[in-house]
């Protein structure tokens, strides 16, 4: 089944991930002011917005790294935030961070097998077999026994993606995974993410890479000062509906007077 069919087949299903009225304050500063987002099976939703608009905080709220001040997070229609927060629900979502977050004391292979063996009780040999398959998929099978510090930033992020995928998440959250990379490494990482989208993986992605966002997004959400300023399909980039979106998109363009 290709990605398009996948979307069509699941169009009427209930969302994998549903955020209802998410509110988050840091002191008197309201970072998220009642945000509603639903992500359907196989859908790739891209979150855009200026720095400090609450994109990263939103992802952190979803996986439970931040406590909510209001609203709820539902996974497969089941509340997993607040008192209902559970370790089990957490393992059904994968997340990759902006900074290099591989465990520096473990080899690439051990980084990937750690959670499946500890949390799921998968036998070591089986977990390793799966890990090698994942590494092959991102072109890093030969690095299995290396330490993360010997890898380039782009390679580390690809391994981090494998590590998240090893838990078979229902949804993968990516928080500016290329923000800390040199430009020439950005491409190799985003290429992997694009392939995951083609395989039908459900994703919620925060990024500043506009051409990547345009290529991968089934739906785009522009977040501004803790609110959704605009939501739409990929046509968002050509025909933004709101002034705020036009303004935001224009910050990625450069014009020199007289040319």
């Amino acid at each position, binding site marked *: 089944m290709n990605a398009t069919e996948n979307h069509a087949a699941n169009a009427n299903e209930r969302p994998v991930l549903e955020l209802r009225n998410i509110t988050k304050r840091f002191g008197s500063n309201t970072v998220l002011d009642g945000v509603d987002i639903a992500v359907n099976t196989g859908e790739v939703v891209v979150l855009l917005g200026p720095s400090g608009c609450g994109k990263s905080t939103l992802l952190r709220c979803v996986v439970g790294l931040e406590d909510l001040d209001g609203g709820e997070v539902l996974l497969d229609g089941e509340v997993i935030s607040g008192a209902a927060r559970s370790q089990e629900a957490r393992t059904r979502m994968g997340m990759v*961070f902006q900074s290099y977050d591989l465990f*520096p*004391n473990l080899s690439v292979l051990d980084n990937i097998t750690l*959670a499946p063996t*500890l949390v799921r009780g998968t036998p070591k040999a089986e977990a390793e077999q799966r890990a090698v398959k994942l590494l092959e998929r991102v072109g890093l099978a030969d690095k299995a026994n290396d330490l993360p*510090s010997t890898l380039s930033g782009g390679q580390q992020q690809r391994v981090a993606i494998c590590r998240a995928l090893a*838990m078979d998440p229902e949804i993968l959250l990516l928080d500016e995974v290329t923000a800390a990379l040199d430009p020439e490494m950005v491409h190799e990482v985003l290429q992997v993410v694009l392939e995951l989208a083609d395989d039908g993986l459900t994703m919620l992605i925060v990024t500043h890479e506009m051409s990547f966002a345009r290529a991968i997004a089934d739906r785009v959400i522009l977040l501004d000062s803790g609110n959704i300023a605009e939501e739409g399909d990929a046509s968002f980039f050509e025909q933004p509906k709101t002034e705020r979106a036009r303004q935001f998109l224009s910050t990625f363009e450069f014009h020199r007077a007289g040319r």
Partner: protein
Amino acid sequence: MNWGLVGSYVPFFVAAAQVTLYISFGGIVLALLVGLLCAVVRLWKVPVLEQLVGAYIEISRNTPSLVQLFFLYFGLPKLGILLSQEACAIICLGFLGGSYMAEAFRAALEAVPAVQHESAQVLGLTRAQAMRHVILPIAMKQATPSVVANVVFLVKESSVVSGIALADLMYVAKDIIGNNYDTLEALFLLVVFYAIILIPVCLLGTYVERRFTNGR
């Protein structure tokens, strides 16, 4: 200096060195356990225990080790708790060193970037699993220099046990000085024996640290 005398005293110092090593080793192991436990309690901010650990660390660091030792050896029997000299010596070093080790571990644990805790958490690891497989191994590397410094400190500090008549290096040296007035020879041997014990400890520490830094 009479080298003949020095030679004749060597066997006494060899025997005493074993006492010093035995007491130090026991005390260091205890200090590492106490320190690790205290550091984790402080990192996790475990209620009540955190306050107890705080009080322990202050008492341990702000009272002389000889006073701690006398309390164990002469004070506790008045409360009906009778411990052997060796047990007192080891507990004393463990009590003293525990707080120093705790501070070394705590500093290293706190230096582990938040993203490591968060990655482990998001992967579904429990706090204990994350501590055991990720946070502690990372922190250990960072803690090595201070832990080695504390080990050296505790071996030197073990000389207080001569105060309760345990025949360690210090005791034997004082004995020879008191009985035979061979002050120079005894002190010379004392310095040499402590150096023989401690220099390898320092070298080992440097080696371990380097091994950690270069990966495995």
